């Protein structure tokens, strides 16, 4: 199974505790974490500055904004990603219907499996 070890992994999540908890755990799995960042602007800035990540974990609601501009930028750059959200997949806009969704609260093992799947694809 494909793992996240040695992969550059962007985390976009506005809830501090969740973001750092997740980032810390992914690092413990050997990932090179980019971020975490809490807003669309910060995420886009990171994508501009740094080398592109191999994969990304995106929370959908970031305070009062939504993460979709970041998703679009990643799609355009060919970077796979997964959503992490309290939302059901049925509220997703059409262009993201095929993007995997992990629901909150996070199941770390499940997230790792899904990340492995999109990295292998």
């Amino acid at each position, binding site marked *: 199974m494909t793992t996240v070890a040695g992969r550059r992994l962007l985390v976009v999540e*506005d*809830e*501090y*505790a*969740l*973001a750092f*908890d997740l980032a810390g755990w992914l690092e413990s799995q050997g990932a090179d974490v980019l971020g*975490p960042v*809490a*807003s669309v602007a910060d995420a886009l800035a990171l994508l501009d500055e740094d080398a592109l990540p191999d994969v990304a974990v995106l929370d959908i*609601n970031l*305070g*009062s904004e939504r993460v979709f501009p970041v998703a679009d930028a990643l799609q355009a750059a060919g970077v796979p990603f997964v959503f992490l*959200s*309290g*939302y*059901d997949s*049925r*509220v997703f806009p059409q262009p993201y219907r095929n993007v995997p969704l992990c*629901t*909150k*609260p*996070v199941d770390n093992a499940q997230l790792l499996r899904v990340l492995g799947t999109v990295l292998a694809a």
Partner: protein
Amino acid sequence: MAIGQLGAGITGFEEQKGFRFLTYSNARPRPARYSRDAGMRGRDDLDDGTGPRTPSTRNEELLELIVDSSADFAIYTTDQTGTASSWNVGAERLFGFAEAEMVGHDADVVFTSEDRAAGIPARERSRASQDGRALDERWHQRRDGSRFWASGLLMPLRDGTGYVKIVRDRTEQYEAEQRVRAEEARFRLLATSVPQLVFTTLPDGGRTWPSPQWIEYTGISFDESLGQGWLAAIHPDDREATRTAWHEALAREKYYVEHRVWSAASGEYRWHQTRARPLPGSTNSAEWIGTMTDIHDLRTLKDRQGVLLAELQHRTRNLLGVVQAIARQTMKKSQSLDAFGEAYEERLRALSRVQSILAELDFGDVSLRTIIEAELTAHGDGALGSGKIEIGGPDVNLAATAAQALALGVHELATNAIKYGALAREEGKLTVTWSVSKEGQHRVATILWRESGVTMSETAETGRKGYGTELITRALPYQLKAKTELSFEADGVRCAIAVPVTEPNVGE
């Protein structure tokens, strides 16, 4: 005698008022004697010997046979004043008066007493004289006083000596008509007073009657609504479905569609549920009756309910995510399971408090004062009103997500103050003040938390590395783009939190 005159020019029948009348040519009828027995005696005795058999005598004979044997029609003649001069078997049967009783007597007794008192019989005779006939639909009276609904025709005799009257009992038809009329009136009353838009239609959707409510609702006139004209009030996107629903309706004998109908009053399309059923016992070409019910609010509410449910699920999951993260973070910083239990429970309570506030405001903006007061009330042990705590600042609102994060920060400060700080000792004081300033495009509220009268001890050191410190110095800047400063001064904790706030509504 009179009947012979009448019969001389029969040319056929005329359909009128539900039964057939004999019709007559203009040829001058020849006088003939009429007796009720004549028809029974046969033709040799019928003629009074005035000449050979001619077409007109045959006609007379025919007529006398008809009149005599006509049990369904009362036929009688009178003179100018209404005195009976002949009275057929139908008249005997219908009115209950025998011929012998009537001939030579006033025939107006067949009218009701009210009509006689009102001069109806005389008026009818004068109308017949003037117009050549008088149609007469009214209650008549039998010999025994019972009444029946009669359809009558009064015509003057051509020689001017009197009148002939033909009467038929139409009580059954009359009562049936009355019932139909009453039923129709009931239908119209119902159809025009219910809030639904009622209509009658052919099974191809062609309207035959739109109720006044429809006309008022859509602003489409009665005439414009007929046939397929009513479709003009249906939303263009729904017209196809509205039309095709008729195909299925025929097989099921039931029409059903949900579509948008133009409301002239509100200037918008509103969702309606339209149903129609054929009238009982009708065929495919017969009339159907339908109603259109406004279900717009119901539909809107259903949609809204779906959105709310999704949102509720989202919030619940997010909240569980936060609870999970707090548990993990608290676990990392806890020395023992007991310490974890205490701190975790307090944090969940703080989370629950701010959730209650947010839920009450339907997750709209929350006043900063509300957040601070809620935390200090929960922890202060009555200190809030005791003069130990001072709170002050302008009215300012936070977005719901910011409010939750800030409330957890204030919770950490308050917990620390109660355990080690200003709220832990007699001489301690706490002031929480805030001001609002503009930074670039955003408005920012700067909150100052100042404790005094505290002798800082080594216990503060634990606080420096604790979860609360991390929350204020790292989480709030990360999550809210807040600027925070936290310092442990000699006489107590100082904390400054500058957090972006929502713009006041226009007009506020």
